[in-house]
């Protein structure tokens, strides 16, 4: 579309974005509040951030979560990308419908059900709950998100480049590695980031599938939130928001520069 904005459009944009950002902004602002009472402003202070350094339990949980997110996102990206290639490039194989279902269903499946089913599975195969089980659980859910992100990029990709490579004698495998993968790389990175934040974020599935000694940060936050709002939690949340925001904004900017460059290359190629 793209057109003149009416007053109504402007109001709905302002309202929508205020609604989206006001709660997070307030949370961040109140993390710098000096008072322990989270709803009364008593002046700027970083006391709660300093306090965090002494909270052993929170720091341990943060490490567990970070390791979990790094490992599960990386494996999920590999598996998810493979699934995306399988679904959009190898269109004819037995069980394709089943695979499509197994990719899409977990995306909307209520987390309690995914968590419950994975836990019962781990119990059934006699695998002790701990870091390994929660990692496996996160890989299984994240890989579906990665697959969808990569698949949408594969769909919009101009197939003629791959055709050309194969016409010039490249094997399908070589084509995949030298033509397709470099072209879908931004989507693979985006998929990894999505998997990483999903893992960083997850409370429900982790609560079901983890064991003693592998408490994740969201579980820690959750157990404290249930006791009430505290400025320390605001501070932890602010740090997490900052990390994620910087990551997403950076990725968007890099992606945009890449697209500009690619468009230029394509134009040059067309002129050349």
């Amino acid at each position, binding site marked *: 579309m793209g057109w003149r904005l009416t007053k109504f459009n402007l109001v709905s944009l302002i309202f929508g974005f205020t609604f989206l950002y006001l709660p*997070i902004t307030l949370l961040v602002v109140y993390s710098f509040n000096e008072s322990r009472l989270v709803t009364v402003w008593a002046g700027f202070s970083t006391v709660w951030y300093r306090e965090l350094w002494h909270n052993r339990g929170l720091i341990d949980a943060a490490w567990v979560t970070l390791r979990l997110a790094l490992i599960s996102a990386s494996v999920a990206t590999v598996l998810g990308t493979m699934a995306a290639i399988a679904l959009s490039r190898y269109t004819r194989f037995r069980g394709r419908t089943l695979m499509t279902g197994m990719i899409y*269903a977990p995306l909307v499946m209520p987390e309690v059900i995914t968590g419950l089913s994975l836990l019962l599975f781990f119990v059934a195969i006699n695998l002790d709950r701990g870091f390994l089980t929660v990692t496996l659980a996160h890989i299984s859910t994240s890989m579906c998100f990665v697959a969808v992100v990569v698949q*949408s990029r594969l769909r919009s990709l101009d197939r003629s480049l791959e055709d050309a490579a194969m016409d010039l004698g490249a094997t399908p495998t070589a084509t995949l590695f030298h033509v397709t993968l470099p072209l879908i790389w931004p989507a693979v990175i985006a998929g990894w980031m999505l998997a990483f934040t999903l893992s960083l974020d997850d409370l429900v599935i982790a609560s079901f599938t983890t064991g003693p000694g592998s408490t994740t940060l969201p579980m820690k936050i959750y157990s404290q939130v249930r006791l009430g709002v505290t400025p320390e939690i605001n501070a932890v949340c602010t740090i*997490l928001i900052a990390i994620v925001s910087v990551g997403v904004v950076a990725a968007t900017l890099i992606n945009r520069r890449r697209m500009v460059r690619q468009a230029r290359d394509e134009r040059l190629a067309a002129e050349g």
Partner: protein
Amino acid sequence: MARSGGATGAGARGPQAEERAGSGGLFRRIVIGVPFLWLVLLFLVPFLIVFKISLSQVAVAMPPYIPTFGDPSTWWSALQQFSLDNYAWIAGDQLYLDAYILSLVIAATSTLLTLLIAYPLAYGMAKAPSAWRTTLLMLVILPFWTSFLIRVYAWIAILKPEGLFNQLLLFLGLIDQPLVILNTPVAIFIGIVYSYLPFMTLPIYASLERMDHSLIEAAADLGSPPLKAFWKITFPLSLPGVVAGCFLVFIPAAGEFVIPDLLGGSRTLMIGKTVWLEFFTNRDWPVASAVAVVLVAILVVPIAILQRQQEREG
């Protein structure tokens, strides 16, 4: 599988190109097989286990249920031990029925509320100058990347009786008694609308953005008032996005746990929380499994519709 011939000339797409892409031999088998097996093992099989356990008896042991099959020789006798007791138990207890109905009602209401906020937002975004659009899109996606738990948590400080929203209303003199919002269904609606807004906004925006603008101009040229043109042209064309958005909100909202738990208080018992309580507090795994199976049975239709639509979109 051997690689079929080299050059097939121009326009070699379609089935022929597919055939060639399909002939990767071992590599192809790995690319399809590994994720396939992974999903079967860690999505399908666990779900079948839930189904199986929902048919078994509760036991005071670890694991707290009587396994219904071990080695194949006992399968037949195990099969005879299957019982629908857990389902009968759920059906007989008003608590579960209420929780299911409440979950569906809350999910449906919040889906509608999300649509009411997301549609104008997506519409405004689609009409914005193209230079803004990437930024607006990023602004919608960004909260989606930040923690779900944090976003729900942020609302507690706002909605509490002594929270910021009540402080504002008291300051403005609109109320003289703090409103009780936290621990009521209203707080759940706010939480769901807030958390799932991007899921609704993005598909609607995508279908609006793709729309051919000349259609609206043609309607205007032919004397149609803008509002009529919107209802007759824009809205029907954006319907695929609306439908996808509604399902993307409704399905997870129906099984939501975190939002009702943190914002809804203990009196609003939704089904996601029921599964959680049966499992962690009552340690009744068979009943928890049966509750989960019934929830999936309810959601399987919307999931199938969503999936079919996603496939058609691609």
